[in-house]
């Protein structure tokens, strides 16, 4: 029931009384937002009388049973840790979904380390988990995704540049592969504010509403999708399900002032993709002798 804030001197992250991110303040400007872990119910087997049309969500296809995701929890239990170099908020949504929101001293991004799994499927429903950031940025149906970490492409919701799209899958039909980053800005020609997610592995992502971006972080499905793999996406075998941990960098900049968003996102993406490699050795020597 208490509001919490963490800061690193450059930015301030505010959490509401439910323990969810409420806003981020950068250079005195506030960007209202929410962020949560959510799940799509997967389409199960037997959704059509025809074997050719019976397509459960599976390894090849993302096919949610419905048009929106459900929050894993509306409230998070918090542990707040603050110190000289990092301040972090641990948010526990359930026994199988939690995350840590970190701000390191001197950094201009927010690190979100998510841990998801084992996804419960005792109710007979496959689940596909996403991290969703919602802002009030009027993005006009436009969002941007990388293509294999290289060129950043404009995507438009419910639109294809070379043919007239008949949207029969309103969620999956707007999902794109995200290898490195996804972002929205507030205006096509005069972008002032940018909100971006930089990911550490290839994931699916989209912007289903203006100002919103989401990335799929984990899936556990109970049926083969009949496209060839011949088994459901349910590792390991009949076991308890996988626990997956990964990192997103959340970048918020409310005053671009002519700066192209990519000039901020690309260094972050390189930092994520090519992190320094650590090696260790024990020693009995004093520092002087060791050196």
């Amino acid at each position, binding site marked *: 029931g208490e509001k919490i804030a963490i800061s690193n001197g450059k930015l301030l992250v505010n959490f509401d009384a439910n323990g969810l991110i409420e806003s981020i303040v950068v250079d005195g400007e506030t960007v209202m937002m929410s962020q949560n872990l959510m799940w799509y119910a997967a389409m199960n087997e037997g959704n059509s009388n025809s074997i050719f049309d019976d397509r459960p969500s599976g390894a090849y296809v993302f096919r949610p049973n419905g048009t929106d995701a459900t929050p894993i929890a509306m409230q998070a239990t918090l542990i707040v840790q603050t*110190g000289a*170099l990092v301040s972090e908020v641990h948010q526990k949504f359930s026994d199988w979904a939690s995350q840590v929101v970190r701000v390191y001293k001197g950094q201009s991004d927010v690190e979100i380390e998510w*841990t998801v799994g084992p996804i419960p499927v005792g109710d007979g429903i496959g689940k596909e988990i996403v991290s969703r950031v919602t802002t009030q940025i009027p993005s006009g149906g436009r969002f941007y995704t990388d293509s294999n970490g290289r060129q950043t492409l404009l995507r438009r919701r419910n639109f294809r540049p070379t043919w007239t799209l008949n949207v029969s899958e309103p969620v999956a039909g707007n999902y794109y592969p995200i290898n490195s980053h996804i972002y929205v800005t507030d205006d096509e020609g005069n972008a002032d504010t940018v909100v971006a997610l930089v990911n550490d592995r290839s994931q699916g992502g989209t912007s289903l509403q203006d100002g919103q971006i989401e990335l799929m972080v984990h899936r556990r499905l109970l049926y083969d999708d009949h496209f060839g793999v011949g088994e459901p996406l349910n590792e390991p075998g009949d076991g308890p399900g996988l626990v997956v*941990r990964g990192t997103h960098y959340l970048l918020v900049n409310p005053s671009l002032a002519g700066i192209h968003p990519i000039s901020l996102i690309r260094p972050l993406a390189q930092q994520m993709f090519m992190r320094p490699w*650590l090696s*260790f050795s024990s020693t009995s020597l004093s520092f002087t002798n060791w050196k």
Partner: protein
Amino acid sequence: QHLIDSLRRSMGEAQHHDAVAGTEKEHVSQDYRLRLHDSVVDCQQDVSNSFSKMLPIGSQPLPQQEFCLHLNVSQCAITESSSRFTVTAYNPRSHEVTTYVRLPVTNGFYTVLDPDGSEMIIQLVPLVALQSIDAERPKSTATHELLFQAAKIPPLGHKTFYIIKTSTGRGQHSAIREKQQSTTVRRAKT
């Protein structure tokens, strides 16, 4: 060269086949993992060999470098059990990089020295218990993560940091430093 080629080959195989789409069967996925892991271990050997060759002629051989592949779940045998150890950060980018290093450790009093012997600002962050992750690291004794900033690692180069653990600090000066490196924790009441 063959140590590096091993990873090239494993990555190439995976990218040529269905690992790229994630549409492989589970036992195939396990095979990809095994091949990638074996190749990564080969590359670690190559890095270790390279460090030894960078020492001046006549130097004592460098101790074998160990790599911790479970840092993402806060587990590393050397950092958890050694009272003196070194950490080498290799920067694979063609730009100078400053990064934060997090190492799983047991509670105590730590001093981190940079390559010039200057003492660094550190923070000891308590590990938060998480049932699903703790099950993945049954052998770990880590209770905290030791955090420091590895500044200005040269492009395609490395920096080594020297870390000493003592059970407690002594004197007023140590008490101040212990306070500086501690983390304030607030937990929600259940």
